[in-house]
Structures are given as structure tokens and as C-alpha cells.
């Protein structure tokens, strides 16, 4: 622990700060409406950097989480260049090599560092490619849930009255069901409605929609609460006196002032979304086995767990834990660092 603290202290603060700043910008880029104000964003980022960089340096857990998360994300993004084999290339698969154990155990070979699965696919490569799909689904469904939730929360909080009551009761009803159940429901309905042969092609889209729709409530509630506060502030009333359209007030005035907590929720939600995707894939309603995600890999390996081929399911599971845990820890840190009451 102290080693980490010392090392990070020795690092030049500028580099540290710019690293955070780039993370910051990456995370917030999608929610920024006014890209034109780039210089103002840079100025804001500089102000934020001080506090964030400081709390980042002070938290060894966060530094480890950031490194692990970067490794996971980097591995997933650069999978085609990093992976020793291409698990999608069916022609390259050797069924003779099925169920090879990890390299360091008896019978293992360094051609397949983490062993192979039932079809002779390299487990390490499938994990890299699987993490790619898991991350893509997680991020896409979070972006979708965020867009939906922020829009509903803004409208609900700003317009109020019956619209607000209706939307929030809808949210209450949805909250009384577990998210996974709603995702299963949407997935099931989509499967019935769509032609059979289209299933595999649009499986990812359906998955993103299902996870996104099951997750909008959190955003809507948070944004509604902040919007209620902002709406009563005089700058919003000033915009109304000027005669701006309610929609313009919501987007230009209220939205930039309510995005802070949304970013924190989104970071934590990415971890949840990855888990939900894994759960759905584990249950067999997620991505097809031909392009497996981490959840699919765990499900496939689960069949062989008790026959001794433990590596097929354990390594994807470990990868999932590392990815989710590190993203979660980063989200927790971001929440605490941005909450002045917890300082």
C-alpha cells in the first residue's frame, strides 16, 4: 500500500492530472451537449483536476483499480492484435486440441496459455474477444439508459404535475421488479416478435435495449431531483422571462447543471450492465455462442466444471470479476471525490 502511495507521489503531478483529465473527458464526452465550448471545458477540467487528481493520488485502491480497468479495457479493445488465436475463425480451430489444460499444468502447452474449451478455442483469446463484447454491450446499454433516463427525468422534473406523477409512478412500478427480470421480459418479447433467422444478427441490439430499458429509472430519478432544484433557481426563471422555449431551457440551462451525478451513476452502472449481460448470456438469452461474451463463456464452461475442465469457466469468471470490480471501484471513487459532503 505504502509503496503505491510513495510511487504516485514521486510521479510528476502534471502527468497524473492530465491522465485524469483525459479519463474525465472520455467519461463525460457523450453527455456534453455543447462541444463548441471546448475551451470552457478545458478550463473546467483544469479546475476539477486539482481536487480529483489529489483524491486519486491519495487512494491506492483507486490507482490499482484504474490500472486493472485500463488493462482489461485495453485488452478488450486491442484483442485482434493481442490475442494469440482468432476464436471466430472456425477454420483455424483444431478439435484435437479441445480441453487442453492451462500451460503450467500437466498436459498443457504454451500455444494455449489458459487452455482450450470444448471446441479447441484458446480460452485466453476468447476471454479477450468476449470482454470486447461484454464491454461494448455494457457501454452501449449504459449510454442508452442514460439518454432515456436523463430525458425522462428532465421532462418529469421540469414540467411537473401530471406528467411527472405518471412518469415517476412508471419508474416506481419498474423498480418493484428486478432489473434482470425486465431484461428477460424485453428479450423474450423481442424474440417472439422477430423472425427466427434474424435472432443472431440483432441479438446484441436487443440485449442493449433490454439492459438499457431496465436501467433508466436511476437516471430519471436523479435527474428529476436535480432538475426540481435547478428549475426553482432564478437563472431558469430569467430564461423563462426572456421567452425561451421550455425545451431549450431544459437542454441549454438545466442539463449542464445536472450532469455531475449522472456521470457517477453511469460509471457504476457500466459494471452492473456488464453483469446483467453476463447473466443473460449465462441464461442463454444473450449473445449467440458463435461470438461469445464473458457470460456465454462462463455458461459454456459451466457444463464441464464437474468433469474436471475447470479452466473453461474459471478464467472467464476471473476476468469478469476483475473488470467489474475495477470499474466499480473507480465509480465509487468518482462518487466520493465529487461529493463535497464526504470529503
Amino acid at each position, binding site marked *: 500500500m505504502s509503496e503505491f502511495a510513495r510511487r504516485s507521489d514521486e510521479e510528476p503531478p502534471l502527468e497524473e492530472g492530465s491522465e485524469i483529465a483525459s479519463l474525465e473527458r472520455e467519461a463525460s464526452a457523450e453527455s456534453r451537449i455543447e462541444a463548441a465550448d471546448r475551451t470552457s471545458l478545458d478550463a473546467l477540467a483544469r479546475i476539477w483536476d486539482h481536487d480529483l487528481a489529489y483524491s486519486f493520488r491519495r487512494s491506492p485502491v483507486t490507482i490499482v483499480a484504474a490500472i486493472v480497468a485500463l488493462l482489461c479495457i485495453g485488452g478488450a479493445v486491442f484483442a485482434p492484435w493481442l490475442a494469440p488465436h482468432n476464436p471466430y475463425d472456425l477454420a483455424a480451430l483444431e478439435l484435437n486440441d479441445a480441453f487442453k489444460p492451462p500451460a503450467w499444468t500437466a498436459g498443457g502447452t504454451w500455444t494455449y496459455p489458459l487452455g482450450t474449451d470444448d471446441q479447441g478455442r484458446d480460452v485466453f483469446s476468447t476471454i479477450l474477444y468476449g470482454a470486447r463484447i461484454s464491454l461494448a454491450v455494457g457501454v452501449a446499454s449504459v449510454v442508452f439508459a442514460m439518454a432515456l433516463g436523463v430525458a425522462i427525468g428532465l421532462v418529469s422534473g421540469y414540467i411537473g404535475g401530471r406528467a411527472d406523477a405518471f412518469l415517476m409512478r412508471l419508474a416506481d412500478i419498474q423498480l418493484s421488479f428486478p432489473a434482470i427480470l425486465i431484461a428477460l421480459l424485453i428479450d423474450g418479447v423481442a424474440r417472439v416478435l422477430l423472425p427466427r433467422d434474424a435472432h443472431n444478427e440483432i441479438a446484441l441490439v436487443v440485449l442493449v435495449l433490454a439492459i438499457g430499458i431496465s436501467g433508466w429509472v436511476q437516471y430519471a430519478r436523479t435527474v428529476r431531483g436535480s432538475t426540481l432544484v435547478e428549475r426553482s433557481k432564478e437563472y431558469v426563471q*430569467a430564461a423563462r422571462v426572456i*421567452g425561451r422555449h421550455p425545451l431549450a431551457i431544459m437542454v441549454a440551462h438545466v442539463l*449542464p447543471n445536472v450532469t455531475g451525478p449522472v456521470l457517477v451513476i453511469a460509471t457504476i452502472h457500466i459494471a452492473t450492465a456488464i453483469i446483467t449481460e453476463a447473466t443473460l448470456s449465462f441464461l442463454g438469452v444473450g449473445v449467440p455462442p458463435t461470438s461469445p461474451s464473458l457470460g456465454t463463456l462462463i455458461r459454456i464452461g459451466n457444463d464441464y466444471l464437474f468433469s474436471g475442465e475447470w479452466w473453461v469457466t474459471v478464467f472467464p469468471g476471473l476476468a469478469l470479476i476483475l473488470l467489474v470490480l475495477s470499474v466499480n471501484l473507480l465509480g465509487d471513487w468518482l462518487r466520493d471525490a465529487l461529493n463535497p459532503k464526504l470529503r
Partner: protein
Amino acid sequence: MSAVATPEPHVERTAEAPLLELADVGRDFDVSKPWLNRVLEGAPRLLLRAVDGVSFSVRRGETLALVGESGCGKSTVARLIVGLYAPSRGSIAFEGVDLSTPGSRSAVPQIRRRMQMIFQDPYASLNPRWRVGRIIAEPIRVNRLLADEPSVRARVGELLRQVGLTPDDAEKFPHEFSGGQRQRISIARALSSNPEFLVCDEPTSALDVSVQAQILNLMKDLQQRLGLTYLFISHNLAVVAHISDRVGVMYLGRLVELADAKTLFASPAHPYTRMLLDAVPDLAMSGAARTPVAGEVPNPLDPPKGCAFHPRCPFANARCEAERPTLARAASGTQVACHAIEEGRLPPAHR
């Protein structure tokens, strides 16, 4: 203007069409519990009469101040006029155009441009995420007053100079300014659409005393240069005495006295006005006996019957408890809503 010799100057001046006219304006707020509670607990529907039967007119070029204790409805009147609330009763007319029906304001966008508002809290009235230049230019852009971007920028710089800041300040964020400077920005924004009428809702109450004077002098100066008309909401009698031509005194959502500023401060008519003026600390230390403001403002959800002021009024009688007084012209030319004055049983003010 030919009738200068008339003994009653008000009559002659009201012949000129007022810029803004409020007739019997009222506004209720629904403060009842949510629908489910009302159904299950049998809770009644509660209406708060924030403003009740307020009538007055504002003449072009003058400053009319509304004063009163917290919660008397003066800010609600301001928000009714600029259209943040719709009136529940009565009519609000700007140059004879009725604004009180919903949707009429969007039908008359020109009126919106000509009427602007300055808010109380300079820390809340500017969007913290916007640069000052964008804040000030917003009314110009919304009303499409200037065609191209360079002229908008030039106009913003001119406005900033007009309120005592520099054109470079347009590039800064609101948090880089002090309260007084922020209020100057707020004034610049209000002026940017070339309005004739400004509603000022306690524009100085959140500022230091020294800064208050600067802002008031700036507002007076701008009024002279641009020929502005002000409706000035305040609870600070010293500020009101400094800036206003006429003063309306409000109590529990009703207008109880409307008079020239000089007349009001020299010889307040209504017992409530007398009480307010008596409560002002006497810097001259004249040792004059001051009557402290007695009692509390009654619950506005359940205002007293008759004259709303009767529980606190030393001159109240049975009629005051039963019958609501109306605003009537008294001998001095002021308008007062008081039975005691009407009946002539009020002793002269001891000022």
C-alpha cells in the same frame, strides 16, 4: 399637460395611458396535500391566496415601489407581471394589451422583449455554466434582435460598459465576479433586449450596503438615460425612499396604501404603513418613542375576516373585523384601504 393648474395632479396624469395596468389581480396557490392523501386521509383542498384583488397602474418613466413584510405577495405580483405565473383572477394590461389569458404572451412576443426582470439573488440568477457574454446575449439571440455574431458581441461589450464592467468580462464565468458585479451582469442581461419596463424583485437585498447604493445609483442613472420604467419590489424602506416616485404598501396579498413616495414617508396614512415606518431605526437618535411592530403576520392560509390587518391594528373596531375595506382616495391624494381613515376616526400620524 395643459391642466397644470388643477389642484389634483394625479387626475391629470392618469389621463395619460398607463404603461402597465393591473385590475383586481389575484393569484391562488394550491398547497393541498397530494391527491392520494386527500382521498385516503380526507385532507381538504387548500388554496393560498398569495395575491388578492390588487389594482394599480404604472406610468411611463416612473418608479413604482411595492413594499411589505416577507410573504405579503409582493414578489408574486412581480412574477405575475412578467408572466412567470398566470393570474387566477383579474387582468394585467401592458399598453392596453391584456396579458392575463394564457398564451397571450407568446402571441405578443414584442411585449416580452419590452418587459424584463432583475432578480433578487445574483448568485442564482446567472447560469453557472455559461459565460457572461452568452448570458447577456441570450435575450438578443432569442428575439433575433441582431443579425450577425460580431454585432451581438459588440452590443454585449456596450452593455457591459453601460453597467460599469469591461467588454473583456464577457469571456469570464459568473463565479469570477462579486455579488454587486453579478447584479450588474443581471442588469445588462435585462437591458440587452432594449426593454422599456423593468420589474426588479428585491435587486439589492442580497448585497452589502455599500454595494446596494452603487447598484441603486446605476439603476437611477440608467432610468434617466434610457427612459426606463421600474416596478421595484423591496422590503427595505430606505432603498424605496431613495429610488421610488410612488410607493404601494402590501399586506397579506392586498394593497393597503398607494401614495407618492414623499407623501407616504412624510405622512403615512394606513395604520400598517405607520407601523412599518415607526419600526425603522432612527439614526438621529431623536429619542422619539417608537411603537414596535406588534404581533405576527397571520397565517395566509386562513387570513382574518374583514380587514386583514385588524388583529394587529390599534384602531380596529367591529366593522374592521367584518367588512373588507377597499382602496379609496383619501384627502391627501393617497389611496388607502382603511375604514378608520374613511370614517375619520384615525388620529393624525405623530411624525
